């Protein structure tokens, strides 16, 4: 469903992403790991068509992001880092706007999609509040609702559980897991236990390069008895 081929992005003299390739199948939840600044977000931004790669490309269900960026954007639900949203809009206004831009021009269809997204992310109690008045956890859920709204085949989530309390984290993980059956999901995270809990693939990138692409089980088997974060540290230590 997602094929990433040789993505490269250079900022000035720094190569942020250096030839990253991987693929994700339907039903996969791919945990995207790496220290801050390793190029996780940049890679996600290239897959979702927000920034143009210097080389390489990504294909979503066969649609090439370089050739047809708008086509790719239709197929992806994307939660950017920090879940940006228009602060002066209420939750339902905002989701209504997203639905309209997503092409649900019919009022009834729009309402149905907004209701579904609000239901999935439990936003019912704050639907008439403006987004600027919401707590971090609710804001994150609004971003999540926005990404799910059109029931996309591919979800790209940049730190979806960042800033949530343990209960909310659990809930979001449950949600991702329940939806992954018929979707391909990429999620970036700093929380290694999250990868163990829900992902069936692990990718580690360090200094813009892919260093690991395997299952969490074989990742843990790299050093039997060690915890995930110890292995992670030994793989990415050169960054510090």
């Amino acid at each position, binding site marked *: 469903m997602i094929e990433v081929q040789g993505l490269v992005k250079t900022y000035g003299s720094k190569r942020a992403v250096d030839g990253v390739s991987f693929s994700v199948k339907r039903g996969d939840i791919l945990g995207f790991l790496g220290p801050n600044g390793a190029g996780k977000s940049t890679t996600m931004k290239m897959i979702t068509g927000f920034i143009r790669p210097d080389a390489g490309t990504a294909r979503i269900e066969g649609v090439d992001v370089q050739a047809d960026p708008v086509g790719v*954007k239709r197929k992806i639900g994307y939660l950017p880092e920090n879940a940006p949203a228009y602060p002066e809009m209420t939750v339902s206004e905002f989701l209504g706007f997203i639905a309209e*831009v997503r*092409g649900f021009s019919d009022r009834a269809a729009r309402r149905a999609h907004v209701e579904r997204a609000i239901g999935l992310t439990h936003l019912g109690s704050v639907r008439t509040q403006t987004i600027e008045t919401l707590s971090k956890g609710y804001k994150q859920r609004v971003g999540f609702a926005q990404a799910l709204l059109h029931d996309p085949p591919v979800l790209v989530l940049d730190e979806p559980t960042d800033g949530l309390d343990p209960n909310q984290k659990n809930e979001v993980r449950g949600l991702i897991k329940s939806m992954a059956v018929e979707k391909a999901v990429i999620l970036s995270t700093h929380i290694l236990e999250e990868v163990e809990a829900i992902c069936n693939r692990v990718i580690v990138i360090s200094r813009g390069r892919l260093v690991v692409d395997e299952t969490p089980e074989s990742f843990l088997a790299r050093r039997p008895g060690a915890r995930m974060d110890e292995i992670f540290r030994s793989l990415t230590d050169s960054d510090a």
Partner: protein
Amino acid sequence: MKQALPIFKREFVGYFRTPVAYVFLISFLLLSVALAFSRFGGFFRAGYASLEVYFQFYPFLFLFIVPAAGMRLWSEERRSGTVELLFTLPVTTLEAVVGKFLAGWAFLALAVLLSFPMALTIGYLGSPDWGIVATSYLGAILMAGGFLGVCSLTSALTKNQVVSFVVSLLACAVLVFLGYSGFTGILESYLPVDAASAISNFSFITHFTPMLRGIIDAKDVVFFLSLMGFTLFLNVVALER
């Protein structure tokens, strides 16, 4: 171009979701009317029922007011990160630029049209030429679009709204003063008349003034429309780089 519509709607309604719209509309109307009645304007001294006294200050008023309305168009999106949200939705850059520009333009047009009590006043005081009133309004709205094109472009170049405001103001000031009578007088004393008039051709004033006299010349309309087209094209390029 279909997806420009929801972006237009969100942006236009967005002006009214914050106090920005009300502060803006009220101060614009107060200032413009106060200038007309001031000793620089001399609305009553003019002695004839015309809005030329009212509209003659528009290029100078727009110099401050349009950058204030246009500075947030893209700077705000870039600062708050919503630009990433917007451009990972299925819209093209052109649709987003056009949608936002038209929303800002519609808002400015609303501000201009809310000065209708001035038109009613001259209608009550005398018998104005309503054709000239109409061309004046058309000219003011076209000129607002020209200003806003420049401001939308500068706003796309920076995350900082203050920088956006100041750069817009400077760029618009150049485009205003190239046609200001004091400045063109100086130009003509140094340059051949043809060269001086070619330069003043790039000014808002040069193309706005005939409309206040009831003249709609194709070259004036084309000037404003092509300025909008050109700045919006650069706007798309600036966002896609």
